[in-house]
């Protein structure tokens, strides 16, 4: 706190040293120690070899086919689950906020979303195995009641599609949580103004509502992408660590010795940061472009 006791009798304008930043110092220190430095450690480590010398080998090694494949499937799952999560979550949030559903639904749905979006990955995996697994409830109901054998049709919970389906369980609620305030911000008068100016509901959505919501949707997508990209527990519990997606490779790397090379582990982690970083950078860039009209 920057109060000085002496009265400023002197007539000179003397810009006093401000100590206001001290108020955030504890927080910054904490973030530095337990967020920034550990991350930097990894990034730096990915450019070093076991002897501590600078090298690009670790990065080059990322480009071996099996690791590239792991990144590629991770990206695909993340994109797919983020896109679907955005879409379905948006529709549900819309239904809740603007779609005329009874008001009492709002609070339970938001509560549920709070839980589901942060729900532990492991029980989630159990739940999906129990649902869409080979003897899952839904699988059996479809087979026994409707004669639809989804496994014979090529579905597998341990596939790209199955994993995406599982990830949606936390992606959709996250979207609902983020989009609800944005949809709350959609003023009834905008719709009414558009309508009385002769616009059809479709024109209103195309010309007004979607452009306004676009930045929020983009932001949600970027967040969902990172969220899926870093998710370990669900995949780990579903497949018992044998699935080659990046976080699991990395998990194995830290815990075991699959890759026989800790510095490659650093590089793997660095690669994850780069990819989520790029996703967020694209988001910030797109958002800035679509937000000229915002303060």
């Amino acid at each position, binding site marked *: 706190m920057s109060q000085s006791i002496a009265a400023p009798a002197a007539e000179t304008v003397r810009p006093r040293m401000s100590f206001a930043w001290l108020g955030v110092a504890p927080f910054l220190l904490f973030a530095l120690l337990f967020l920034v430095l550990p991350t930097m450690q990894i990034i730096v480590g990915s450019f070093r070899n076991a002897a501590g010398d600078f090298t690009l080998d670790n990065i080059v090694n990322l480009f071996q086919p*099996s690791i590239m*494949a792991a990144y590629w*499937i991770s990206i695909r799952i993340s994109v797919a689950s983020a896109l679907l999560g955005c879409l379905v979550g948006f529709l549900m949030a819309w239904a809740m906020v603007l779609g005329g559903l009874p008001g009492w639904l709002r609070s339970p749905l938001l509560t549920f979303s709070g839980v589901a979006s942060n729900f532990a990955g492991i029980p989630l995996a*159990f739940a999906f*195995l*129990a649902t869409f*697994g*080979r*003897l*899952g409830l839904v699988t059996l109901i479809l087979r026994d009641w409707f004669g639809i054998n989804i*496994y014979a049709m090529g579905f*597998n*919970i*341990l*596939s*790209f599609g199955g*994993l995406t389906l599982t990830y949606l369980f936390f992606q959709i609620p996250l979207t609902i949580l983020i989009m609800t305030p944005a949809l709350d911000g959609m003023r009834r008068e905008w719709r009414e103004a558009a309508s009385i100016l002769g616009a059809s509901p479709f024109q209103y959505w195309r010309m007004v509502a979607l452009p306004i919501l676009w930045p929020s949707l983009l932001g949600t997508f970027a967040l969902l992408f990172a969220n899926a990209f870093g998710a370990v527990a669900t995949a780990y519990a*579903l*497949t*018992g*660590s*044998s*699935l*080659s*997606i990046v976080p699991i490779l990395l998990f*194995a790397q830290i*815990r*075991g*010795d*699959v890759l026989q090379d*800790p510095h490659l582990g650093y590089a793997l982690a660095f690669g994850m940061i780069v990819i989520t970083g790029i996703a967020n950078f694209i988001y910030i860039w797109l958002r800035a472009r679509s937000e000229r009209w915002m303060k």
Partner: protein
Amino acid sequence: QSLDEIVEAAKKEGMLTTIALPHDWCGWEGILAGFKAKYPEITINELNPDAGSADEIEAIRANKGNTGPQAPDVIDVGLAFGPSSTSEGLLLPYKVSTFDGIEVKDADGHWYGGYYGVLAFEVNTDIVKDVPQDWSDLLKPEYANSVALAGDPRAANQAILSVYAAGLSAAGGNASKASEAGLDFFKQLNEKGNFVPVIGKASSLAQGTTPIIVRWDYNALADRDTLDGNPPVEVVVPKSGVLAGVYAQAISAYAPHPNAAKLWLEYIYSDEGQLGFLKGYCHPARFNQLVSEGKVPQDVLDKLPPAEAYTRAVFPTLEEQDANKNAVTGGWDSVVGANVQ
């Protein structure tokens, strides 16, 4: 150092850090409980019970400078990992008082075999009506999407040996071709769509994700007991390629609690500890000695898997195991390339 001194010193250390001891595995639960009951002054800090052998070795390496609770004192690894880590200098030599009765061991006491079993098929007969009897059966189209290993073949001893066993069967017992044939076998299994690239376990068996799991007979039998007929489980030792696997115990060279570690080994290789393994359906290192001394109760003996299977069992040499380990961990990704699609 006498046993009493060790006990004394271990009590002073007050803690023992173990790693990779699943409670449902080979009677570990009972052995851990027995040790705790005997030495209540020593708390047992159990690290990742689900780790594979390679994970255990890495845990030693990763904690070279670390004496915290993350550093394991003792490990329990597939035999192949014993010599390699000895040469890497990761193990502390120690000879337990019952050292002489142990058959498979490092002469200096860096490691010694603790127990063994054979690889078997654990089958959920709710789903699989026609139970496979040999490795070659697994390739049949009726087992589409059914067969799993019990570990990651890039890290787990059990899975690495499963590949070897399959290869041994395919190569007609030719140990020198087993690794290659094993990888090829799993490549075919994967291409036919029979292989499920998931770590098989009781729940995936029951839920139908992996109705057939290749794993140690003692694990399979323990599963059968816990599942208790729901679903019904059949455990089959394959006709050919019957592979015996030995797990070895050792002390970390960087153990934060070396005395507790020594005491732990003493306990494991004592009569009491060895009988603990037997209760978990596996054969302890001093099995023959104990039997000959008449120390094994009959009801425990009766429950063991049929001795007939063990007569066909192959015990690969250390060299074979080491070569196989390298071949499988190195070749799995590129040859089999099984992955979730």
